[in-house]
């Protein structure tokens, strides 16, 4: 049980793919213009990661070491293609928005990294969990990034959510005559906000370890 808890904690916080490993920045910066875009691409990536980790783990005894990378890529590409087709068929509006970034999940190095570093050596359940949690760690970060950029850039939240959940509509957070702040939408805004998020995570981590240290030292000092 504690193994699974470790995997979860590791994926979501300690080794978060975006703010700690800083892997797969291309989609991270490109699709985080709104919460909806970021969240849905995050979930699609998480799905591919869980599935590819599970598949590689199940097949790991039958994958010769020398050709493991081509096989991994093949597995990931096949799964991504299936996700791409599924988006096209059932979430067509979103498919039009995310466009090229769904196929590009293949090239997101975090996917291959988890397959190589974890799934190739661990059991199926643990590997699937690792893939899913790493994917959710990524989703959480880019969703926050997307929400922040959307708020700064156009003063709304959840615009385009009706493509995922029919009947919902965007929330106008800032006054409707908010002119929009372009840097939120353009790439530099993504870099700056991501930098702030990495700093915030490091600060929280630092504070937690400081607290642990003082707690450990207190009885000795008393």
């Amino acid at each position: 049980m504690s193994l699974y808890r470790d995997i979860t904690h590791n994926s979501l916080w300690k080794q978060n793919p975006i703010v700690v490993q800083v892997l797969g920045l291309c989609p991270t910066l490109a699709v985080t213009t709104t919460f909806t875009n970021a969240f849905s691409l995050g979930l699609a990536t998480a799905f591919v990661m869980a599935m590819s980790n599970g598949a590689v783990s199940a097949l790991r005894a039958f994958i010769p070491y020398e050709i493991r990378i081509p096989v991994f890529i093949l597995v990931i590409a096949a799964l991504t293609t299936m996700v791409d087709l599924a988006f096209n068929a059932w979430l067509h509006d979103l498919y039009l928005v995310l466009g090229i970034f769904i196929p590009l999940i293949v090239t997101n190095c975090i996917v291959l990294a988890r397959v190589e570093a974890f799934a190739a050596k661990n059991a199926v359940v643990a590997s699937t969990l690792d893939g899913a949690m790493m994917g959710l760690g990524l989703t959480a970060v880019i969703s926050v990034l997307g929400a922040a950029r959307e708020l700064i850039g156009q003063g709304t939240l959840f615009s385009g959510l009706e493509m995922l959940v029919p009947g919902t509509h965007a929330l106008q957070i800032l006054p409707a005559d908010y002119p929009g702040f372009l840097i939120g939408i353009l790439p530099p805004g993504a870099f700056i906000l991501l930098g702030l998020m990495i700093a915030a995570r490091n600060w929280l981590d630092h504070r937690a370890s400081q607290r642990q240290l003082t707690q450990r030292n207190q009885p000795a000092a008393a």
Partner: protein
Amino acid sequence: MSDPVPPTDQELSVTPPPPDSVARISVRTAVILLIYTVSFTALMAVTYFATKPAIEASVQNEKLRLIGEVLPQDTYDNRLLDDAITLPPLPALGLETATKVYRARRGGQAVALVLEAAAPDGYSGRVGLLLAVAPDGRLLAQRVTEHKETPGLGDYIDPKKDKNKQSPWITQFDGAGVDAARGGNWKVKKDGGRFDARAGATISARAVTNASGRALLWTTEHQAALFALPSGRKYEEK
């Protein structure tokens, strides 16, 4: 069961089994890779066929929905997607590939031509347009189908991104007559024409305005020939 006998010198000197030859390893690896390729390709094929009807339906719907934005569905009664002719790449429309013209009719009477056009000179490249042109030379409506204009700045040419939801910028073209295009009035106000453009983002508006003016002139001039051609045929410019 006796205790394992320590290996004697003789046993140790037995030659180890010959390592697999390079050829054997290569063939084995290739076969394994082939098996993976075939099985995952099969998986993709299954998904492809499972999603095919839904994808075709959504592409069809997408097309009808887009056409519906420039031409309401209750204004015509023919099967619009089937009543189409092919246009060659025409510079007058700004197109570099062959496209289709859909011909809307009501009770056999010509109602409108729905066609694509493009502005090559948007702020960040090509702006795709869809126009509905009435036989009397009015531009019934136009929509931007694709663009890469700056988000929040030039993208108001797309009514979905336009902050003015009451009367989006693109709707000022609704019902505009070809006379304006003939008289040289089909320009943004900054260029001495009649159409508004947002301050600070004139380039996107100018691109759309000029392209639609050119397309309207061309379509009006050729509309009789376009309506007369049997469905499915290719239009040839004389």
